[in-house]
Every structure is written in C-alpha cells, then in structure tokens.
C-alpha cells in the first residue's frame, strides 16, 4: 500500500515523536509512505483568517506536488488533514475558485485537478485499510491492564463521515484490538483550546483542565492524541494548569502511534518516547509488566 505522506511542520519539531512513531508503525504494517518532495506549511488556522485565496493556494501547492502515480495522501496532523481536505472540497465545489488557485499554482509550473487525490487521516487509514485482523496479528506486547483515554480532538471528526462526530469510536476500537482497556471519555471530541493559550490563558487552561479532570476521573493511565496541538496543550501546559487551579494532574499525553508501536514490540527509543514533558515510560513500564518476550 503506497500513500503520499504529508508530515506538516509540527512533526518536524514539537511532535517529532509523532513522526518517528508514524514511520516506524507504517513500516511494520507494510504501509509505504512517500513524503511529498518540497512540501510547505499548511497555514494551520491562521492563513484562512487573512485571505482565502492565498490560504487555499498555499495548501493546494502540496496537493499539486503529489506524484501522479499516487492518489491518496495521508496527513497525521489534524490541522493539516482538515486543511488539505477542505481545499480539495472547495475546489471541487467551486470551479471559479479552483481556476484562481490553479492560476496561482501556474506561477510555479504546478496544477491540481480537484478530486484527484483522496485526503486520508492516519487513524482512518490504519483502522480501515489495515483492519482488525492484520493489527491483531502484529501484537507481541498486548496492552492488557493499561487504561487509555482516547482523545480525538475537534478537527478530524467533522469533515470525516466514517465515524460519529460527537462520540467517535474508531480509536477506541483500535486500542481494544491491541488489548488496551479503553476508559469512558465523554469529552473525547471537545476542543483543547488550540492557540487560545497565546491569547487568553485562563480560557485555554479551563478547556485543558476539563479534559485532564475527565481523564483522571475515569482513572486513565495515559491520554492518547492524534493531533500535535492537542498533545502540546495537554502535555506542555499540564504543570501550568496545575499551578493555576491548584490541581496535581500527572497524566502522560502520547500519540496513539507510539502506543501502537509498543504493542507491536518496537524499540521505544525509535517511537520517540522521552520527548514528552510528563514522562510516559514509568507509567507504561509499571502497567505493562508482562515482558514482550513472554507475551
């Protein structure tokens, strides 16, 4: 299975662990990821607030750069996924806009035919294209006894029609396949605050607190993320939230691909563990007593 791969800026730096674990897990599952040559930033949420055509053109450039023999692109970051999908959709629905975007692209000798590439989120790809049987086959270290809260965030659930946007379940199912104990997490599709931390800390911290509180109430050992923004907010701001509210949460926040890698028995260093601020390794070591060799 070959897919174009759009890592996005976050995966180069703050979410390097996501990139590492995505590549390691994809490799093991036989997913060939072909990184788009010379890709650029998707503009996150900011560009769209300035100028629609510019924002679209910046994003469409990445779609146009995809090799002609590939017809699917996977973006692990929720914002990248949403932006790529949005622009492809806008171009399909509005031929005038599509023409304008292609005029912009022509400056770089590029062109994109709307609908040529199907934009996929990594979770959907692993859940649907790989499927239950193949995943279960690869498990060497079942995650028995590990209580995970599956956090979807708000960006991937809306444009994607294959799951319930209010109470999605695909990651829950995936984690059950690898033996983890999925806790109830009613706020699983609520907002993490996004860039609100830069604008108004009290507002952002309250949103983060609600998520941590809910996970703690259900005694989750870790919170799994699939969006760099969510992971950053919950992990990097956890101690600041604690001092702001006088709480004492210490919940490791990791990417779902990291935990999949653990279940598949991959080398923890290659999965990017140790880059998170609230350390995940002690919790995982304590919970996953059965060593890989005997599993």
């Amino acid at each position, binding site marked *: 299975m070959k897919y174009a791969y759009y890592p996005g800026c976050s995966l180069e730096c703050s979410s390097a662990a996501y990139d590492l674990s995505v590549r390691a897990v994809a490799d093991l599952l036989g997913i060939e990821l072909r990184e788009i040559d010379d890709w650029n930033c998707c503009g996150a949420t900011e560009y769209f607030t300035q100028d629609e055509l510019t924002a679209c053109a910046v994003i469409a450039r990445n779609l146009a750069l995809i090799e002609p023999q590939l017809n699917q692109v996977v973006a692990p970051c929720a914002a990248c996924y949403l932006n790529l999908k949005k622009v492809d959709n806008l171009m399909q629905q509005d031929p005038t806009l599509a023409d304008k975007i292609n005029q912009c692209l022509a400056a770089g000798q590029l062109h994109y035919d709307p609908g040529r590439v199907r934009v996929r989120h990594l979770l959907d790809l692993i859940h649907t294209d790989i499927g239950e049987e193949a995943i279960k086959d690869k498990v060497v270290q079942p995650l028995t006894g590990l209580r995970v809260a599956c956090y979807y965030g708000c960006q991937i659930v809306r444009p994607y029609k294959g799951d*319930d946007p*209010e*109470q999605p379940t695909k990651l829950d199912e995936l984690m059950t396949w690898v033996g983890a104990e999925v806790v*109830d997490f*009613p*706020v699983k599709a609520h907002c993490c605050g996004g860039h609100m931390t830069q604008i108004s800390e009290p507002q952002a911290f309250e949103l983060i607190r*609600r998520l941590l*509180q*809910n996970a703690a*109430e259900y005694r989750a050992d870790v919170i799994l993320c699939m969006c760099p923004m969510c992971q950053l907010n919950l992990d990097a701001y956890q101690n600041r939230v604690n001092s702001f509210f006088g709480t004492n949460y210490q919940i490791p926040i990791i990417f779902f691909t990291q935990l999949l890698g653990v279940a598949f028995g991959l080398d923890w260093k290659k999965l990017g563990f140790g880059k998170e601020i609230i350390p995940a390794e002690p919790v995982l070591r304590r919970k996953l007593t059965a060593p890989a060799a005997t599993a």
Partner: protein
Amino acid sequence: MAERVGVYVCHCGSNIAGMVDVEQVARWAGANLKDVVVSRDYKFMCSSLGQAMIEEDIKKEGLTRVVVAACSPHLHEKTFRRACENAGLNPYLCQMTNLREHVSWVSKDRDKATEKAKALVSAAVERVKQQAPLEPFFVKVNPATLVIGGGIAGLQATLELADAGYPVYLLERSPSVGGHMAQFDKTFPTLDCSACILTPKMSEAGQHPNVTLLTYSEVEEVSGSVGHFRVKIRKKARFVEEDKCTGCGICVEKCPRKVVDEDFEAGLGYRKAIYTPFPQAVPRIPVIDVNSCIWFERQKCRACEKLCPTNAINFEQKDEVITLDVGNIIVATGWKMFDCRKISQYGYGRLANVFTALEFERMCNAAGPTGGKIVLRDGKTEPQSIAIIHCVGSRDSNYNEYCSGICCMAALKFGHLVLERTKAEVYSFYIDMRTNQKGYEEFYHRLLEEGMHFVRGKVAEVTDAARRPEEAGKLIIQVEDTLLGKQRRIPVDMVVLMGALEPQADAKELGLKLGISCSMAGWYTERHPKLDPVATMTDGIFVAGACQGPKDIPASVAQGAAAAARVMGMITKGDVMIEPVVASIVEEKCSGCRICNNLCPYNAIEYDSEKQVSRVITAMCKGCGTCVAACPAGAITGAHFSNEQVFAEIEGILWDAIHGNGGQIKSEQAVSA
C-alpha cells in the same frame, strides 16, 4: 359538418387577469381560431352566472364543443362538465386549459404570458374538436371495508362503520389492537387514564358482530379499484389455534423463557416467548415468538403445549394467505419513534439514565414494568431532578424539519406526573412551546403554576463529564438559555428525550401496494391538505391518524370518524362512477405479444389464451396510457387520449410555427384594426 366551438376565458379575479391580457386572448381566439363561434372572457367563470352563460350559449348558439381557459382541471373540471351536461352537451366534449397554475402564477412577463395563453387556448380548441362523446360507467360498491392498523384512529373508523351496520375487516400487524395509545398512562390535557378510555373501544371491536379482527397480519398485495378491491393478507403463524384458545393464560404463565420486550414495553420490561403484549389485549390469544421460543431454538420444551387445557398450541402452524374483497380501504398505520441513538450527544444508549419518551410512558404506567414508579435505570432510586428535552429529531434540519406537534403537550404531561408522584425538580428544555388546541395552553399555565422549570434553548449536550464537585455523578445538561442569553449547565439525575414522530419504516412500501403516495418526509399524502384531508388521490382509499402526519389522540379520532363517514357515503350511494377514460384493445390488431400485460401498473390487462389476445379489464383501468404507448402493433387506444386528439393538441400549441405571421391566423394588429 364543422363543429361549433365556444371559448371561455376566466379572469379568476386578478389571479389570471393580473398577468395575462384575458380580453385580448378571448378576442384573438374568436377572430383567429377556426370553428370558434363564441369567445368570451368573464370575471369568475366558475360562478353560477359564468356557468349560466356557457349553458345559454350551448342552447342559443348551438355549440357542439366548449373550451374553458381557467384554473387547474383538478379544481373545476367537474363544474364545467356539469354545466355542459345541464345544457344537453356530453360532458366529455368540454375541455379545460390551465391559464393560472401553468401561466399567470409562474410568469413574470405579461406579453409572453399572454402569448402562451393564446397557444394553450389554440391547443385546447384543436383538441376538443377531435374529442368524442363518452358515457361513464358504474360499478357496485362492495359494502365491506378494510381498515389497516388497529390504533385509535383505525379503531374509531372500524366502530363507526360497524355500528352503522357495515362489515369491517380490522387488520393489525402486532398480536393485539390498541396501538401506541395502549402504552400510555395518562392523556393530555384532561389527564384521563389512557387504558380506561381505550380498552372499551378495543373490546367492542373484538366482540362486534360486524367486525372481523385480523391481528398479527399484514397486507401482501392489493388489486382492483374503488368499489371492488381484492386484498391478499398474510396471517402470520401464531402457533396457537384461534378457535380453540380460551385466553386462560396458563401457557404464558408457565413458559420458562423470558425476554426483553422491545415493542410494547419499549425495552423497559420483559415478556415470555409465548405472550400477549398486555393484559387487556384484544384478542386475548397469545402468539409464540419464534426468535425467542426454546422449541424453535433447540427442539426442547413445548411446556405450553403440554399444559394447554384445550390443546390450542400447534407448533406445525404455517403462515396463511387469505383473500378479501372490499369496497374501500382505510389506512391508519400510525407512526414510530425517532431513534434517539442517532443524536449521540444526548447519550441515549450510552448514558444509563437517559430515557426515551416511550420508555418514560411505560414507566409512568401503573401496569408498566415499574408499577408506575418513576425510578432510575437501577429500578429503585427515585430521581431528585429530571430534564425533559423537546424536539429530539424534529425541527432539526439534520433529521426531520417538521414539528412533531404532540411533544410539547406530552412533555407537560410528564412534568405533571413527576411533580404529582415524586419530589423531583423538573426542567423542560424547549425551543418554542406549542400548545395550540382546546385546553392545551391552559394546561401549560397549570404546569407553570405547579413549578415545572422552563428553559428556552436547544440542548447542546448531555454529559457525565463533571466540571464542578456538585456535578459529580450527575447528568449535566449543557444549554444556551436564550432568554437569559447565557450558557448554563444544569445537573440532573434523569433525562427524558421527546423523540420525533416518524412515519412507519415500511410506509412507502405499503403506499406502493395501495397506489398512494407519501410526502418527502414519508407521511401519506391526502387529496387536498385543507378541503379533502382524509381522501387520497386513489379513489376508495382513505387515510386517518398519524400515518398522514404527526397527530394527537383527538385529531386521530376525528380523522378515523371522518374517513368512516366518507366510506359510508360511498356504500350508501351503492355504486361509483368510473371515468370512461380507459384503454381498449382492438382484437384484430393484437398479436398476443403480451408486452402490455406486465407493464400495466394496475394489473388491468388480462390475456385470453384461447383467442391469444390481451384484453383490458375496464373497471380496473386508470387510463394512464402506458399500454397505448407500448403496443408495437398500435392495437391499443386510450379513450380521450387518442393519437388524433394528442396530435391535434400539439398542432394547436404550435399555431404560430405552423401558420406563421403570414399564415391564416391574423396578427393582433389586424384584429384590432
């Protein structure tokens, strides 16, 4: 001999005259169209003066054909045909053309509209000259009626007809008649006990000498037409012989298999594998559910058979298909509740103490699974606070756009029952309070007095994710209170979802069998939304109750009685007139290819294997013309839609293309000059 045609152009007040120069059209037709001897315009052609004018012209001018250019023939074709008949002209020599719905109401340019009106008048004139006098024929009306659906609307219709002395077959899909009303505890706004007012009607229907109950049965096929329908009905195997069973109930008592009752108890209670849905069921004859019976699962048990004192249990029973002949059919198939699981943010199916309105009805019912106690899902804890959410799946463009109509009142009723029986606080989350029938608004005010809390706003979410200590262990209602202009979080113990009323899942399928149509939302379409609310476009088939749209009990009963009255009218008259607009086959031309046999949507063509020709059963033919178009030999003609008539109409509409300005038809300038 040339025909003498009269043309009558109606102003319809300003409805037509506002957009079409009707005087010019009339003048033009009189001056230009061949064989037109009289051409007039008039303010309201359908008035008695307008009709008298036509009648007088027929007599004085010796008209042999009449064209009325006015509104849709749906509205006034009968009027003008009758006027012609009064003056001694065959009614099928009168042709209407529609200048209102087809021209003035849909046009913006007066000149173009006037030109179009002329073309249509020309078409009608050319056509009417080709028309032939036809004689309608009559069929006897079978006095028996089939009522489909044994809820309150169907029961009412059944009893009205039976009491008037006519035989009725009452068909019901489930094992007992009674419908949704049998599930309810109290009825709004007077709070009379639902069972107390319903069960007398049920037992009356069960014992009435004129009523044949067909429970646990479904419609398989419908043929024939008004006056003489033939209906095939599948009587599902009960595995209990109806003539032997006395309804003693020993089988139900001794059956060892208990299963959750998803139908009558809405999943809140249990029933046995052999069961009657509820104690007052009519008939009292139980059925065996093959999906839960131990015998059908693993060929063991048969306890019911051993213990039945009258040997009524018969495990060998098979479905039986019976055929009924009836003159009219009343459809009263009711509604089903919206699947509240679809709105996942309200948590039904995920959060234990979220209930549907039907579950709550059963809980309030003294004969229900909790004996009328309002308790949480654990079956014992009385809630301290209850939230009732309105418009779940209705007034919501994601699900159903329509208002379900009854839910506001049902929610108020629930509020009253809770306040009467518990110490709980009750919150109603509504968008608009809709209480617009007799005594309803007063009931709303009563609840305001009784202390029910009303919050205007659509609930965003029901969650168990607590943010504050006082929310722990509760269900939290997140809502924008649009009167306060504030977001609120209200912790409660129990949530009741007022699910929308939806058409039955197989409403369209039954509609196809009957030849009646559904609205976009799936409700059966009445003949006219205001003036003919219980008839359908198919003669002899009537609708009553919630299958035609969301309705409460009083409205359903009124419609049941109205449908029965319409049927009685048909029966009393004794015969119905059948339009002579039917197809006929010229036997000499028919090759017996039988292409038309299967195409006919009304099964109105039979095949004579001896003569090897097809033949139209005139009483069943609707004159749709499908066979006429399909016949490769051109052996079929449709009366009133012959090739000559249709081609003449086309030539008429293309008058300017055929004759041009230099042709026989003079331009407007030439006329006025």
